């Protein structure tokens, strides 16, 4: 299995928020590899740096030292906007923009002029996304602020994969959902990852999700990242 991500001695120190505060070291000298198509779960106690680690994958933050390779190339040398378009992002709390659910998903296609997409390609991708069955046609037409949290998180998932990324990053995507909605979302994530051939990296603190989803588990604790290998599932 080809390696998609490699972390080499990656450390991250959070800059101080107030003058006079000390910088806080969150990750220290972490090294690991992720194979293409792997389902990875990042887990660990609250405040251990799970979300920070996730943000390094698409350069929402950069490591203080060490290097991260994406398909063998240092991600710091990759044009950042191009890199991010290959990596989908699902936030912890679903983000809703104004307009309909469909407008929210279409937003992905028209965010930057440098990456112009043909109208016919947009329409065929929208058709594929609708066919996935995550949301009904009726929901696509509704205003994004009027749908439930579970539906909004599925909308966020569709928006994240609209640009056919290679990697899907999810920051505790089920934390705002009740157990049933969380279970549905996780099943849909599994289905999409296999259909779209995605490498999925998810932050979770729910043991049942870690067991079920993680081919590879990265446990973050006191700044250390430990690989726990296949957890089951």
């Amino acid at each position, binding site marked *: 299995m080809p390696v998609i991500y490699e972390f080499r001695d990656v450390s991250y120190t*959070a*800059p*101080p*928020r107030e003058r006079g505060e000390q910088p806080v070291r969150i990750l220290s000298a972490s090294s690991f590899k992720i194979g293409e198509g792997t389902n990875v779960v990042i887990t660990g106690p609250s405040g251990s740096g799970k979300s920070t680690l996730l943000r390094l994958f*698409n*350069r*929402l*933050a*950069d490591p203080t030292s060490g290097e991260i390779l994406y398909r063998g190339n240092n991600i710091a040398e990759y044009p*950042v*906007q*191009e890199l*991010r*378009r290959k*990596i*989908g*992002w699902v*936030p*912890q*709390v679903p*983000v809703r*923009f104004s307009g309909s659910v469909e407008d929210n998903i279409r*937003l*992905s296609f028209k*965010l*930057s002029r440098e*990456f112009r997409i043909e109208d016919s390609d947009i329409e065929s991708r929208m058709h594929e996304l609708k066919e996935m069955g995550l949301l009904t046609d009726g929901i696509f037409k509704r205003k994004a602020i009027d749908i439930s949290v579970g539906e909004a998180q599925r909308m*966020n998932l569709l*928006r*994240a994969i609209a*640009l056919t990324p290679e990697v899907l*990053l999810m920051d505790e995507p089920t934390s705002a959902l009740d157990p049933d909605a969380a279970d549905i979302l996780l099943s849909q994530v599994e289905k999409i990852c296999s259909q779209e051939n995605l490498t999925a990296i998810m932050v979770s603190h729910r043991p049942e999700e870690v067991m079920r989803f993680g081919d590879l588990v990265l446990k973050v604790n006191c700044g250390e990242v430990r690989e726990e290998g296949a957890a089951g599932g």
Partner: protein
Amino acid sequence: MVIIDWMNVAIALGLIFVAIGLSYFNGFGLERDLAVGTIRSVLQLSILGFLLIYIFRLDSLVLNIGILVVMALIAAFTARNRIKKPFPGAIPVLWISIGAGSFFGMFYVTLVVMSGPEAITARTLIPLGGMMIGNTLNGISLATERFRSELEHRSDQVEVLLSLGANSARASADCARTAVKAAMIPTINALMVLGLIQIPGVMVGQVLSGIDPMVAARYQLVIMFMIVGGKVAALILGTMLTVKRYFTKDHQLRRELL
């Protein structure tokens, strides 16, 4: 024409004593601030009046512009002090935007409206520049503070847009729009009620000093339009420059500044 001499000014101080007395008896605790503010305003305006006599007499364009540049710098420091959580490098951003917006408004009025370099005298530039800078200062501190709080509240939204490949300007465009709109509200409100429930200072001063009210109204309108145009320009430039402070060159939101 009503003549106001220094004796009249001294008698007008009675109103300040009334305000201080009312504050004392009602326990507002504003007495010291009122006294200091009054003393400062008397001193500052007297010095200004005294200096203006010489500045008008000299009437050097270089000196006039130099004075306005320094006024814009003082305004930048004042604006930064009004921001709850100032961002690093705020002074140059505020200075450039207050300066550029004010010069735009002021030179449009002097060169285009008053048509001609003969309008660029100390007698027009200094008072117009002062008004322009003062108004822009309020707007820019409101806008930058609002921009920061919008970024703070919408940080998840901004990062979703960044993750989809948007650049920092695009990802924070809604925050910038909200900030500029909020900062323009006081000026738009002033336009709406101009002459209805508010007669602005310029017009009051002119009417009191014996000028035809219609002439005073025309001056007032030109000044209001100058403030609107210059302020919008300053706010747009200011938020554009502020975006660069809250994001890294790699389009990363600097959460530690929020």
